[in-house]
């Protein structure tokens, strides 16, 4: 774990800009290769003509032209042929712009006044991505007959470009996935990929044309030669020479088209990579695009199109539009699995369940807050495998699609009555307070007594009413439940808020000791509610190097080391944590020195550390937890609380 986890933007920034640069450099190299190949073809034709002309014609008078000029003439003619062919092909491909392509594939233009919810969402997401990429909004064509998930950008320049989206794409994908797909297409528009593609196809056509001319020469001279060789033996040589040149043109044309197609496919793959990386830049959400690609992999239809013209336009699609059993060198897109792995390195290679697609969207729509950074959830209560802790630390600030799905799956575990309560501002308070009630009956009745003094009677009554059902709750849904309650809690009035916070603090301290779960819970609630009720303007950020904050680091790491450990174990845990921050001279603090208020102060101070150093600190804490060879749920919750308070929220544990 030498590479420290850093905050979301830092991770994303370095990787997607780096990947864009790489793809651009590769394209440049390939285009140079393509130009070189064209030059080689011209030179090769000239060389063949030179050889043939010097060998073939010994008889004077047959050729009046200056023999040394012949190869140059032949080269110029070849170049002219290729350029002329490309020119006409490019004109033909440009004709009608993107609209013609979209219509030939069965697309129907969508107008901005559409009221259909699916079309409305599609048009809105297109506008969102236009803003994100800085490209003008193109016309959108809807391929209503296509159930597969695919999209394309067509047209020569941004002024005549259009976007095409299949019905499957517009209906099956979540908003975030749709954003990812369209961001990918906008990258094609922004980077002029269609133009590159059309030009390369033009030149390829020119080379093909050269081969065709070779065939024409070969055939006509071949026939003529048969006649003449009978009648006039002497004219055999020049005819033979022309025949040879025609043959050379065929061979060179064949090799040229073959290699040119290989380069064309390689360029196309690089542009797809560039578009994937730019898509992440525009959305700052790799999970969206990765999710869409996974959805394609999972569907039987995948990204296939049914329109008869699809084969001709296969190069412009989001994913392979036509099923081809071709080797990798020929395909216009990188393999699906490779693209997903670039976006989501921790992908396990499994595609999501096909049937689950619409259900996932439904639950996402029903509970929009699940996608936020405060996503919480916990693994099984027993022990947590160390590699799971390790993986969670790596996911800081970067919840993957799997986490969103996990959160969605968690919801059915919460009884409907509780879920409903968590959504109403009134009952949400009771939910959070009930979560803080101690298991021990004596402490609990004491807690309820103090509650009665702090909050209104009906809240206390609601707590009592919720208690039996809440006690039967799966411990894993406790934190997600807090998350679900947050929007409702934010709707409290100012006096209600003050009352609630006081009750929260009283309950947390009721048993006279720092309980990890209570602490994490109260911190999460406070952190997310405070901006709604208190004037907490973000302090001007001054980044300070870690050595200046070493005392704060020591307090945090000591608190983690003591969590559920004896003094001896704590010393060992602390030592292993300190080892990963070698530049700090820190020692284990006494238990008193890292009490709740000291911890809070230290964490506030540590917000001045750079996000990279914060990541390293969380990393060190994870080491401390793992030092004794096992990690408990409590320890992990403390780690998450710390991580959350440092503004690098950690996604929930995946119990797999």
């Amino acid at each position, binding site marked *: 774990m030498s590479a420290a986890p850093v905050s979301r933007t830092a991770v994303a920034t370095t990787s997607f800009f780096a990947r864009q640069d790489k793809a651009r450099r590769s394209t440049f190299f390939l285009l140079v290769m393509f130009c070189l190949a064209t030059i080689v073809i011209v030179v090769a034709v000239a060389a063949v003509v030179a050889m043939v002309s010097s060998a073939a014609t010994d008889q004077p008078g047959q050729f009046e032209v200056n023999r040394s000029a012949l190869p140059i003439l032949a080269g110029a003619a070849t170049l002219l042929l290729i350029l002329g062919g490309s020119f006409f092909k490019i004109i033909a491909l440009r004709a009608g712009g993107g609209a013609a392509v979209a219509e030939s594939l069965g697309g129907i233009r969508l107008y901005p006044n559409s009221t259909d919810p699916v079309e409305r969402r599609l048009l809105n997401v297109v506008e969102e991505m236009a803003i994100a990429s800085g490209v003008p909004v193109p016309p959108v064509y809807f391929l209503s007959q296509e159930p597969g998930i695919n999209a394309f950008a067509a047209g020569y320049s941004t002024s005549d470009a259009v976007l095409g989206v299949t019905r499957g794409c517009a209906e099956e994908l979540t908003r975030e996935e749709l954003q990812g797909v369209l961001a990918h297409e906008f990258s094609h528009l922004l980077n002029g990929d269609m133009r590159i593609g059309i030009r390369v196809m033009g030149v390829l056509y020119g080379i093909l044309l050269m081969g065709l001319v070779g065939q024409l020469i070969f055939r006509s001279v071949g026939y003529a030669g048969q006649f003449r060789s009978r009648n006039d033996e002497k004219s055999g040589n020049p005819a033979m020479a022309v025949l040879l040149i025609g043959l050379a043109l065929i061979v060179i044309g064949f090799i040229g088209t073959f290699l040119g197609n290989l380069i064309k496919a390689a360029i196309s793959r690089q542009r797809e990579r560039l578009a994937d990386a730019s898509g992440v*830049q525009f959305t700052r959400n790799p999970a969206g695009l990765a999710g869409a690609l996974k959805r394609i992999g999972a569907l039987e239809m995948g990204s296939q199109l049914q329109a008869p013209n699809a084969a001709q336009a296969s190069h412009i699609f989001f994913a392979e539009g036509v099923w081809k059993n071709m080797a990798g060198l020929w395909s216009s897109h990188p393999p699906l699995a490779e693209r997903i792995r670039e976006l989501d390195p921790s992908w396990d290679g499994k595609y999501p369940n096909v049937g689950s697609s619409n259900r996932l969207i439904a639950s996402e729509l029903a509970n*929009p807050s699940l996608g936020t950074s405060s996503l919480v959830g916990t693994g099984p209560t027993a022990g947590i495998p160390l590699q799971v802790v390790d993986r969670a630390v790596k996911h800081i600030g970067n919840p993957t699609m799997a986490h969103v799905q996990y959160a969605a799956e968690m919801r059915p575990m919460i009884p409907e009555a509780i879920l409903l309560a968590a959504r109403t501002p009134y009952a949400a308070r009771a939910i959070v307070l009930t979560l803080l009630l101690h298991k021990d009956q004596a402490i609990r009745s004491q807690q309820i007594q103090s509650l009665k003094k702090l909050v209104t009677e009906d809240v206390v009554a609601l707590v009592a009413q919720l208690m039996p059902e809440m006690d039967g709750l799966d411990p894993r849904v406790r934190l997600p439940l807090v998350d679900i309650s947050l929007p409702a809690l934010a709707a409290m009035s100012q006096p209600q808020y003050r009352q609630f916070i006081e009750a929260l603090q009283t309950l947390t301290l009721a048993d006279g000791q720092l309980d990890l779960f209570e602490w994490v819970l109260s911190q999460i609630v406070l952190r997310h509610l405070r901006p709604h009720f208190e004037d907490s303007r973000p302090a001007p950020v001054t980044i300070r190097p870690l050595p200046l904050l070493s005392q704060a680091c020591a307090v945090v790491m000591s608190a983690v080391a003591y969590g559920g450990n004896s003094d001896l174990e704590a010393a060992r845990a602390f030592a292993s944590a300190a080892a990963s921050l070698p530049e700090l001279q820190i020692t284990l603090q006494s238990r008193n020195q890292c009490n709740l208020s000291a911890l809070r102060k230290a964490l506030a101070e540590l917000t001045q550390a750079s996000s990279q150093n914060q990541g390293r600190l969380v990393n060190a804490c994870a080491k401390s937890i793992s030092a004794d060879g096992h990690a408990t749920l409590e320890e992990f919750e403390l780690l998450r609380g710390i991580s959350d308070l440092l503004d690098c929220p950690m996604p929930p544990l995946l119990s797999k």
Partner: protein
Amino acid sequence: MTWLIALAVIAGVPLLIAMYAAGVYNHLVTLKNRFANSFSQIEIQLKRRYDLIPNLVETVKAYMTHERETLEAVVRARGIAVTGLQQAAANPGDPQAMRALSGAEQGLSGALGKLFALAEAYPDLKANQNMIQLSEEITSTENKVSFARQAYNDSATEYNTYKQTFPPIIFASMFGHATNAELLKFDAAVIADAPKVSFS
């Protein structure tokens, strides 16, 4: 012969420098216009958001008869945000006005968040066709605001990076590109507040 070369160098080097400087100048202008355009996008989207809110309040009013306070809070917050935007648009780049706008925006997001949280409890409202459309529009506008900010920051960073690198740094201040473009700070609270609404 030597004097000819000397002459060519004396005339040619300034010419090359002038050509390069012209290139730098043009690129600076392009980059500056790009981020200025991104900024105007933010303004457009914020305005659109403010225009949508009266419709929302109108639709919601019929159903949420007991939540007058929340509705009034939304209308009030919108009023503050509209004036905030007008002031910020009148003095672009003024940090005071920008901060006031950001505060007003934060207030509006909070009020809207409360409204949508309350709307959860009204199944009839959630099923209302008008409400479904409005919530889609508001979600999209929220997204557009944040994408516009992101695009502004990306293009402002590109501009800043270009004018700070060598050799453009030699010419940048000469051509009136002395100050760096100000980046928009994303308040964590604003991001957390952005109401992600949708009704299935």
